[in-house]
């Protein structure tokens, strides 16, 4: 409603006062919000805006934050009737409210109310219409609009609706909802890009990269794969038909220079470890790996060229495989030391000119955490082929090999369990009749853990190998692989070994795992000792002579103690006797043992047979008495033990 009162303050109060009577809560809020200083500010602002608009007679709008109000003023220097027409023609009042509430000034104002004023008329006959939309906490309790008197019924409905929406927005949290924090378009584009790359292009790309890196040999080896499956989401990567050759391999000489191949390598990646910045693999399984070891005419081995761009230099006259491997290991050690020396301190990561030292890191959080873990490595159907070009005897290939290693880590001292190793395989052409048994079976425990119980810290340093070999050809395998490194050469014979090798800290112990069983047995051996050599602590020629005479020998009472640098051979009486007597006495004793055993078994068998025939047994007993020493001459009583006479003492040498 228009008014004839000249003072804007009175006009303003006239518009506000009627709302007081509606609700005591509203009355209280009005008093708190429209304080005299606020009213004074508002009136001053109205005066300024209306004065300038009335001068040029143009419509004018203005927004201002007059705490705690956000004030939007529209000056229409026309009579109120014309103002009504204007709203019908140019737009709705609701749109005006919406526009006011959409400005950044309103959003950032934190106002307690939106105060929308329309000032009109002349200085002599001004009019004022007012809408007050309480916001925030007050928006629920009090009426939100003091309706503008010139609005139509429909216009008022729209205005109330718009005001309600503004109030609702003001009640909402200041922070936008979490979903709107993200640029979903960017996320979608990135997801499509990475998804497409993952589903369509990542595997071929990885294969291309691997093969192009391996094709030139710049990486220190030639390698290739036929197929790559980078199942990064499942954490399972597979590589089919992996081939590895020396750096000098060309496409024509690839087969000749082949070092290793495998039908399939599957890696179960430890995603939890990778997210913790550790290299982790839960399982690596290699199917049908073939390792081809070639010893060239100059004594170098093909494996020695892997990782090196330059061809290997021979260290002297070719000897045996063991020496070649030792040379290779020595060169690797030298290279590692060189690399360590050549390593520079890492520079600050990309911060040229910065003075901060980015090489300083906290290490204690990772003290008890391994940097790399491979929980299980398995290889099935392993084959190791030997190709000796030096003219020496070519060792037979090792076949049907199985390798299983668990708890492999760069820091075994912090692992919960020790490293376990098991290797088994057959020597081609020397396989055992029992298909379930292998020529070579090795199990090992490597325990370097640091165990803490309360204040007590136990540092383990244990290397334990249990080696079992059966029917191992001495000449074809042992002689061929380690001929020059041994103190003897073998012409024939096989070796059965059942040894426990234990190195606990520095203390060495090599013995048979079960007391009384042979540490090793030689069958049909013919050997020759190197002049001046010692074997198991005995003069080599004597040992060889004794063993040759015996042919088959079980070494039961031998134990090796001391340390790795200073082994102590603790040979029992039987071994000493074997060597001293040149084998003859040993043979005799062994034969006696054999006869005794046979006699015992025979007696037992007869007892069993005669149990139900006492008469027959008695007859035999009588016959035994009568025959007496005649049976003894055969080397022992058939029906019972007979002590052999001790041999006469050797004549004293003067």
């Amino acid at each position, binding site marked *: 409603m228009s008014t004839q009162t000249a003072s804007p303050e009175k006009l303003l109060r006239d518009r506000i006062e009627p709302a007081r009577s509606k609700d005591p809560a509203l009355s209280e809020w009005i008093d708190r919000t429209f304080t005299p200083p606020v009213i004074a500010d508002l009136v001053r602002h109205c005066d300024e805006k209306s004065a300038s608009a009335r001068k040029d007679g143009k419509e004018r709008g*203005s*927004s*201002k*934050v007059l705490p705690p109000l956000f004030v939007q003023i529209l000056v229409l220097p026309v009579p109120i009737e014309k103002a009504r027409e204007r709203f019908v023609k140019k737009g709705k009042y609701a749109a005006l409210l919406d526009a006011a509430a*959409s*400005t*950044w*000034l309103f*959003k*950032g*104002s934190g106002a307690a109310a939106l105060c929308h004023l329309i000032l009109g008329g002349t200085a002599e006959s001004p009019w004022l219409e007012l809408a007050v939309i309480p916001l925030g906490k007050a928006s629920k309790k009090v009426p939100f609009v003091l309706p503008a008197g010139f609005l139509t019924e429909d216009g008022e409905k729209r205005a109330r609706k718009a005001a309600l929406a503004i109030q609702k927005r003001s009640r909402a949290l*200041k*922070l936008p909802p979490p979903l*709107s*924090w*993200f*640029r979903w378009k*960017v*996320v979608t584009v*990135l997801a499509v890009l990475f998804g497409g790359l993952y589903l369509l292009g990542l595997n071929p790309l990885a294969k291309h990269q691997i093969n192009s890196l391996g094709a030139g040999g710049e990486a220190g080896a030639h390698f290739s794969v036929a197929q790559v499956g980078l199942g990064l989401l499942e954490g399972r990567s597979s590589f089919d038909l992996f081939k590895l050759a020396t750096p000098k391999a060309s496409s024509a000489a690839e087969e000749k220079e082949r070092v290793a191949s495998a039908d399939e390598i599957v890696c179960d990646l430890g995603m*939890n470890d990778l*997210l*913790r*910045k*550790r290299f982790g693999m839960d399982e690596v399984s290699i199917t049908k790996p073939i390792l081809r070891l070639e010893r060239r005419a100059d004594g170098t081995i093909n494996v020695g060229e892997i990782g090196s761009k330059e061809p290997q230099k021979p260290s002297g006259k070719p000897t045996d495989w063991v020496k070649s491997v030792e040379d290779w290991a020595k060169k690797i050690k030298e290279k590692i030391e060189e690399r360590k020396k050549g390593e520079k301190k890492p520079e*600050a*990561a*990309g*911060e040229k*000119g*910065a*003075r*901060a*030292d*980015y090489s*300083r*890191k*906290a*290490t*204690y*959080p*990772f003290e008890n*955490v391994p940097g790399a873990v491979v929980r299980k490595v398995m290889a099935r159907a392993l084959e190791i082929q030997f190709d000796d070009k030096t003219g020496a005897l070519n060792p037979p290939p090792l076949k049907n090999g199985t390798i299983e290693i668990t708890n492999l880590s760069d820091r075994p001292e912090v692992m919960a369990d020790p490293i376990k190793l098991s290797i088994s395989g057959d020597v081609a052409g020397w396989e055992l009749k029992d298909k379930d048994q292998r020529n070579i079976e090795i199990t090992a425990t490597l325990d370097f853990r640091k165990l803490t119980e309360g204040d007590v810290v136990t540092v383990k340093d244990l290397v334990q190998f249990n080696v079992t070999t059966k029917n191992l050809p001495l000449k074809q395998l042992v002689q061929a692989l380690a001929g020059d490194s041994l103190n003897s050469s073998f012409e024939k014979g096989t070796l059965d070994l059942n040894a426990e090798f234990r190195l606990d800290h520095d203390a060495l112990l090599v013995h048979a795992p079960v007391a009384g069983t042979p540490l090793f047995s030689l069958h049909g051996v013919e050997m020759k000792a190197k002049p001046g050599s010692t074997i198991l602590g005995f003069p080599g020629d004597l040992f060889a002579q004794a063993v040759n005479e015996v042919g088959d020998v079980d070494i039961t009472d031998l134990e090796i103690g001391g340390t790795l640098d200073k082994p102590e051979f603790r040979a029992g009486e039987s071994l000493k006797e074997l060597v001293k007597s040149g084998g003859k006495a040993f043979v005799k004793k062994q034969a006696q043992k054999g006869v005794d055993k046979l006699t015992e078994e025979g007696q037992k068998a007869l007892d069993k047979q005669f149990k139900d025939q006492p008469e027959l047994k008695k007859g035999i007993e009588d016959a035994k008495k009568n025959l007496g020493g005649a049976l003894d001459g055969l080397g022992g009583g058939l029906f019972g033990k007979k002590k052999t006479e001790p041999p006469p003492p050797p004549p004293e040498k003067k």
Partner: protein
Amino acid sequence: MIILIWIRKIYKSLSADAAPSAIAFALLFGLTLGFVPLLSGLGLLLIASLLVIRVQVSTALLALGVGKLLALAGLSMLFVPIGETLIESKPLHGFWTWFLNLPVIALLDLDTLAITGGAFLGLVIGGALFYPVCKMVAGYRRFVHDRLSQNKFFRWFTNFWLIKGLKFVFIGSGVEA
């Protein structure tokens, strides 16, 4: 041209309808990024966050530049001592041992003293500036809108073709002061 586009974006971000808190967040992100190496784990995470989270990229880039300049000017000398104080402090050993081994966190290179120190300094400065920046942006907008745009001299001055041209070059069209 890139600088011009950047200036325009800064102006638009200050004058447009973006919440002042978004600008303050961008400053926080940018400063933190300015105090850590871009190619570190934390740096890469912050860059990815800038792309994906709705913060004012242009403001963040400005803050990044300011941060790098401050670091070069000598603030980087504080990174290691701050990081050392935080990480090497005995009572916090348990916390850091747990925290730095958490998935994803372990990839952020926070074990590097200078990175932790820089990030902490960035967060502290950015956090301290958060509220003032919110107020400053609101105040700037009020000033430009209420005072400057209504000022007669300003209106007269901006009507010159030279000023209009400069305004077009640096601010672009479609933006009203």
